[in-house]
């Protein structure tokens, strides 16, 4: 293994810059970081531009940049499901997230489970949703580290020590600066990624003789392979339903993830979210272009090392095509791209722990400052856990956890989205629906040994497991709620409708100084 010193020099330089920004972020829009709404949500003050960078940096992760071209490289056009997925997600965001944002702001919610807690007056159900979020997020953080590991290995340095350094730095500035750190670093990350992708999408086709030549070559390569291993550039009919259902299911799940909700809650107004529903698709375009790099890797005849399989395709393509200094920039972009989502995810998981586990079940009457401290410490533990995970478990297995994470996460849809609109949802039917969806999803995942997220349930061929799970979940919730209503026990929303709308002027303080209502003992019995 040879060490590429020029690549490494640029990589370390950019890493140092990001570290400085991460610590400086604590002084940016200065406020009391011993308050969870400041540390964990940056005081809900982000405008359209910062939110665009933050959510873009947060949702389009380093792992995505490695895995999407990897999937295209390995199986052809199926990997492009990332395009319909990240297009149709934005009409959904436009429709639902402003309302969730508004009630979260009015009631001082920091997590999605805070909403569930009050909406259903059930700390058990809130715990179910919180644990779903934490379990889905942990392997996702680990996969961001995997993104860094791929580029470190390609630069010829031992990943373990470098990974530990990167994570100590990440953990330290997240602890100090909270959500402000990834928001500022996202500016650097996105600038770098945009530069790299735009150069790649022009320079690599130029070297390979144009897009026509690339796809001609892909079609030749695919035709020469046995049918089961073909890498077609046009989707085959056997995968139509799989393609459509995984795109729809992934879109339904994306904004239920804790790190997505953290980005949503930190924005300053409904308007910011609605505008971003129109501006964020720019990243979808970029992700599509990154997907095309997978076809370019096929055309260029890249042979990734066994250690990372298809996920090594993009790093190998860069090293084959680019001068070394630019490969250094590209690798730094991927690594910094991993720090932003890893920071937001760890903050989101930590907030779930401090709000919906610790405060709810261990120390109900803790002070605001103590709550923030619990979150900060939890964010450290989450990252150490993820790091241990990536060093101990084979990377291929971690990817399976992420597949499973989406299947589980989608089952929060009734609690976090449907509940915004339908008042008469029965609490116990919600719990049963969640359990049924998670159960069916897990059963199907076991059947395919977690190796894929498609399963043949007996109709429509192979479909996305998560979509089947949420359909069962919704059936149970609907039937249960109808039965409950017929028996005279129709569910109701504990939150008055007015809380879903902006308060009258003068009624709302501007930053997180409101007393969070969830701290008060809830009326009724609780569960």
């Amino acid at each position, binding site marked *: 293994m040879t060490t590429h010193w020029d690549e490494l020099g640029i990589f370390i330089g950019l890493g140092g810059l990001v570290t400085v920004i991460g610590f400086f972020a604590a002084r940016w829009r200065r406020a009391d970081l011993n308050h969870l709404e400041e540390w964990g949500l940056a005081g809900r003050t982000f405008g359209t531009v910062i939110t665009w960078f933050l959510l873009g940096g947060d949702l389009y992760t380093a792992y995505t940049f490695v895995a999407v071209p990897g999937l295209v490289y390995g199986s052809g*056009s199926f990997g*492009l499901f990332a*395009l*319909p997925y990240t*297009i*149709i997600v*934005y*009409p959904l965001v*436009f*429709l639902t997230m402003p309302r969730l944002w508004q009630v979260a702001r009015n009631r001082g919610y920091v997590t999605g489970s805070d909403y569930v807690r009050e909406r259903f007056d059930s700390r058990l159900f809130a715990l179910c949703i919180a644990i779903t979020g934490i379990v889905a997020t942990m392997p996702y953080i680990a996969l961001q580290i995997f993104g860094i590991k791929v580029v470190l290995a390609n630069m010829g340095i031992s990943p373990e020590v470098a990974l530990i350094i990167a994570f100590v730095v990440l953990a330290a500035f997240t602890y100090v600066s909270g959500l402000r750190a990834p928001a500022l670093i996202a500016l650097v990350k996105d600038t770098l990624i945009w530069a790299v992708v735009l150069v790649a999408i022009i320079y690599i086709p130029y070297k390979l003789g*144009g*897009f*026509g*030549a*690339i*796809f*001609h070559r892909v079609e030749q390569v695919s035709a020469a392979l046995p049918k089961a291993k073909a890498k077609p*550039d*046009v*989707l*085959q*009919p056997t*995968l*139509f339903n799989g*393609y*459509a259902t995984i*795109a*729809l299911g992934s879109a339904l799940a994306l904004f239920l993830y804790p790190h997505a909700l953290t980005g949503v809650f930190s924005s*300053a*107004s*409904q*308007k910011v979210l*609605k*505008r971003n*529903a*129109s501006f964020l*698709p720019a990243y*979808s*375009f970029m992700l*599509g272009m990154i997907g*095309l790099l997978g076809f370019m890797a096929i055309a260029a005849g890249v042979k990734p090392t066994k250690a990372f399989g298809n996920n090594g395709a993009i790093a190998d393509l860069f090293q084959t095509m680019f001068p070394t200094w630019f490969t250094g920039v590209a690798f730094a972009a991927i690594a910094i791209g991993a720090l932003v989502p890893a920071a937001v995810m760890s903050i989101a998981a930590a907030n779930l722990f401090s709000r919906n586990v610790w405060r709810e079940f261990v120390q109900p009457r803790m002070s605001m400052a103590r709550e923030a401290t619990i979150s900060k410490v939890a964010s450290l533990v989450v990252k150490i856990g993820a790091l241990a995970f990536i060093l101990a478990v084979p990377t291929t297995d971690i990817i399976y956890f992420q597949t499973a994470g989406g299947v589980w996460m989608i089952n929060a849809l009734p609690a976090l989205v449907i509940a915004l609109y339908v008042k008469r949802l029965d609490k116990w039917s919600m719990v049963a629906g969640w359990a049924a969806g998670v159960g069916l999803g897990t059963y199907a995942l076991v059947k395919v040994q977690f190796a894929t997220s498609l399963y043949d349930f007996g109709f429509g061929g192979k479909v996305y497991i998560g979509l089947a799970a949420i359909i069962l979940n919704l059936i149970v919730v609907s039937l249960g709620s109808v039965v409950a209503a017929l028996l005279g026990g129709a569910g109701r929303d504990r939150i*008055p*409708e*007015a809380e879903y*709308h*902006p308060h*009258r*002027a003068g009624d709302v303080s501007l930053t997180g100084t409101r007393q969070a209502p969830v701290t008060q003992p809830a009326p009724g019995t609780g569960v």
Partner: protein
Amino acid sequence: MAMSMPPTPTVRRRGRWALVLLVIPFVALLGPGWYAKAEPRLSGIPFFIWYQFLWVFLGVVVTGVVYALNRRGEDEEDRP
């Protein structure tokens, strides 16, 4: 509880029909059978691929139009 209903429901209703337009990207993209073909190509890129890239822009147009149509009602509501 009923006394604290939002005071401006009529304002909010204006432009709400436009939300139906948000269905368009779903219809356009969730039936891959309609667009999974190689021809016509765009400078060598199969139709299946450039069609989906085109929909990134068309999707933005749809949400942008809905935002504009919905906006008058929202400005009343959306006081930060």
